[in-house]
């Protein structure tokens, strides 16, 4: 259920998670698109005619190699470190239930990195006939990775009938699989163009650069026209509850009826349009001016758009189960009834087993850490804080916790939040802790004393 690891908690905010996820996504998507881009760039007539063009292709290959190896592997490792630190339960479920997918992905990443290295070492030469074939192989490897990654991500989005049948094929070819594969393929091709732009920024002004810029811009611009089609297709494959959250989800303060999801969707679309214009102005119209600072800002724009899109996707996730585990907190559904009569007593690593007046704050913190830090996204729908801005008393917190307890999954809160497991006394302990943390509950000296002791050394208060 949980592990004796320290709670990373706020150290890994949702933003860091999203940033790393964005880097990882960009890196993963770069392989397929980058491979196609390099193979086609080498197949062009100008390749054999212009040494400047070959120099550009070499630089673009370097950009692909760098993206796949350095940020790719760093982000891959970082994601797992974050999962394990912030949500050991979730990490356990993901690694056990989806292990084969992650293993394939890790192996593919290693293979891709090796291929990219060979591609770079032999890039920019005319006598190497097999080089273009190697670039195509690189693209094929990238597509395989895309197939696997897309299966894992789309499965998280729409597990569908797999929850009943438990068949691998149902998990793989889930409802949103093909639509998201189409979308990711388009973005991947765009990424090939983006890395081409990085290569362009590294070469001096020449007629070959102008020509290559215009051609590279088309890599980013043409797929853009098919994105709306992919988005509409994808939208209609999602669970109705998830899409309803975009239009009717909770809105923040001063944002009329725009939920955080609808605002993110808006940003994501704006980002895609901006990338299009960046490619058009920077590449098609003004290749001469496309230098390193522009490439840097282009990458920032791409990361921003990618991060926002990933964030959107994560928030679209509905609480669901994998092999009987509630995804957000790694709790077995079959344990639900038992846990509702007393969660802490069953939690293997909890130092507090029974709520008393003295340990109520420590008990509340244990419950909070064990159940509500299960999803690395700290803001948005899966964060309690979003909903508790108006809470003023312990009773306000308790009222809220009461409506997100297991079994009330049709109400608007449990569509978006991990459910709460525990007894009435534990619900009260969590409410008291949250109110105290927000400065709305005045704890007794005994309670704060116990909490201080618990914070300094949890083992000292083991019951």
């Amino acid at each position: 259920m949980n592990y004796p690891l320290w709670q990373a908690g706020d150290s890994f905010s949702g933003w860091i998670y999203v940033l790393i996820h964005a880097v990882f996504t960009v890196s993963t998507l770069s392989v397929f698109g980058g491979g196609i881009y390099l193979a086609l760039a080498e197949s062009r007539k100008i390749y054999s005619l212009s040494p400047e063009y070959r120099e550009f292709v070499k630089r673009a290959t370097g950009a692909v190699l760098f993206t796949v190896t350095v940020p790719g592997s760093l982000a891959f490792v970082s994601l797992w470190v974050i999962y394990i630190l912030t949500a050991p339960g979730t990490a356990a479920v993901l690694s056990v239930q989806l292990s084969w997918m992650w293993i394939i992905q890790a192996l593919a990443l290693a293979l891709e990195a090796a291929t990219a290295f060979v591609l770079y070492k032999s890039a920019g030469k005319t006598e190497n006939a097999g080089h273009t074939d190697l670039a195509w192989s690189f693209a094929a490897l990238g597509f395989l990775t895309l197939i696997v990654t897309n299966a894992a991500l789309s499965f998280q989005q729409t597990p569908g009938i797999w929850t009943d049948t438990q068949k691998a094929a149902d998990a793989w070819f889930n409802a949103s699989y093909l639509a998201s594969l189409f979308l990711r393929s388009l973005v991947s091709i765009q990424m090939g163009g983006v890395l081409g732009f990085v290569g362009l920024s590294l070469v001096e002004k020449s007629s070959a650069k102008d020509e290559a810029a215009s051609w590279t811009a088309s890599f980013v611009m043409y797929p853009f026209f098919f994105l709306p089609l992919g988005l509409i297709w994808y939208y209609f494959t999602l669970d109705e509850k998830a899409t309803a959250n975009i239009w009717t989800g909770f809105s923040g303060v001063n944002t009329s009826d725009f939920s955080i999801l609808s605002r993110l969707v808006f940003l994501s679309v704006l980002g895609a349009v901006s990338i299009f214009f960046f490619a058009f102005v920077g590449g098609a119209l003004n290749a001469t001016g496309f230098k390193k600072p522009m490439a840097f800002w282009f990458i920032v724009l791409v990361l921003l758009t990618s991060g926002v899109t990933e964030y959107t996707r994560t928030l679209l996730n509905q609480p669901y189960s994998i092999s009987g585990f509630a995804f957000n907190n790694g709790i077995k559904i079959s344990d639900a009834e038992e846990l509702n009569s007393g969660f802490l007593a069953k939690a293997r690593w909890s130092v507090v087993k029974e709520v008393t007046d003295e340990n109520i704050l420590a008990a509340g913190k244990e419950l909070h850490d064990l159940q509500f830090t299960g999803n690395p996204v700290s803001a948005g729908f899966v964060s309690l804080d979003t909903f508790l801005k108006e809470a003023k008393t312990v009773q306000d917190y308790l009222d809220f916790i009461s409506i997100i307890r297991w079994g009330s999954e049709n109400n608007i809160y449990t569509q978006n939040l991990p459910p709460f497991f525990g007894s009435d006394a534990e619900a009260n302990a969590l409410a008291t802790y949250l109110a105290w943390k927000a400065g709305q509950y005045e704890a007794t000296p005994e309670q704060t004393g116990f909490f201080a002791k618990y914070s300094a050394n949890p083992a000292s208060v083991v019951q």
Partner: protein
Amino acid sequence: MSEHQTDQKTTAPSGVLGWLADRYQIQGLIDYLAKKEVPSYRHSFWYYMGGLSLMFFIVQIITGILLLFYYTPGKEAHASVQFIVEKVSFGWLIRSVHSYAANLMIFFVFVHMFSVIFMKAYRRPRELTYITGFILLALSMGMGFSGYLLPWDELAYFATKIGINITESVPLIGPVLGDMLKGGPEVGFDTISRFFALHVWGIPLLMTGVLGAHLFFIQVQGISEPDGFKALPAEKKKYVKFFPTFMYDDLLVWLIAINGLIVLAVFFPWELGPEANVLAPTPEGIHPEWYFMAMFQILKILPNLGPLESEHIGNIIFGLTGVLLAAIPFWGSKNERLVTYFTIAVLAGLVIFSILGYHAVGSI
């Protein structure tokens, strides 16, 4: 005339420009723009600051017009802003973008001004370019100050009161100015109407005129070259064409800035506090916007000196600093080192007293 322009002849334009050139006498303008060049070197990025300020000004004009569709000055001010952020489609976004753009415009005008001083771009013959730029900074701050009150929420009301109190303490003209701004004995609904008129008509009209003159001077005289660049041998000097290269680069910078602006508005929507209650005591921690924070803090710590009250001393310091900054092209050309020291002192003062100010009100 620009310090560096190519002599090459331009060809007749095609497309829309060609269509226009056939009907109007714009060939000279086209030739001029085609010849115009911008120095390209390590610190060229400072040249984008003016363009960014202009872009935020344009954003403010557009979003300001959209806000005008629903905003009502006077008693309905707060309710109308609440309606905008809660009921109007994208109203919250327009308002947030408007508010952030105002702050960013002031920030970039500051950056632009300091970069111009440090790069000594105020030298002859660009005195008027510098002075119109300085007037634009003052007008931008006036624009921010007048717009701040319009939502009529608690923070805006009390912060404006502080601002007007400072204005009133200016010797001789202060009380008259204060009365003119307030439109009555106290800050009230009449004040909103006056600020509204200033914010929507008075200052923007002035800004448009001064901005037009500023841009005209830049186009006529070209972009200045700093000493380090001028000293380079001719073969090492690099230039890019203003049209299209620099203009497209500027456009890309704008695109990035607009994305940043909207990200701010989406993730941190500009807040609207509770409606101002003129009878309520001033809440703790009330302070003006960041660009007035240093002045606010200096006034708080200044002592009275004999017959002079601290506010009078403050006003003398701010007035003198402003005059000295505005007059740099006239006193600075022969004292360039002194200008640099003076500007560093002003900049350091702004930063340090702003930090102290935020620290004092508990924001940091």
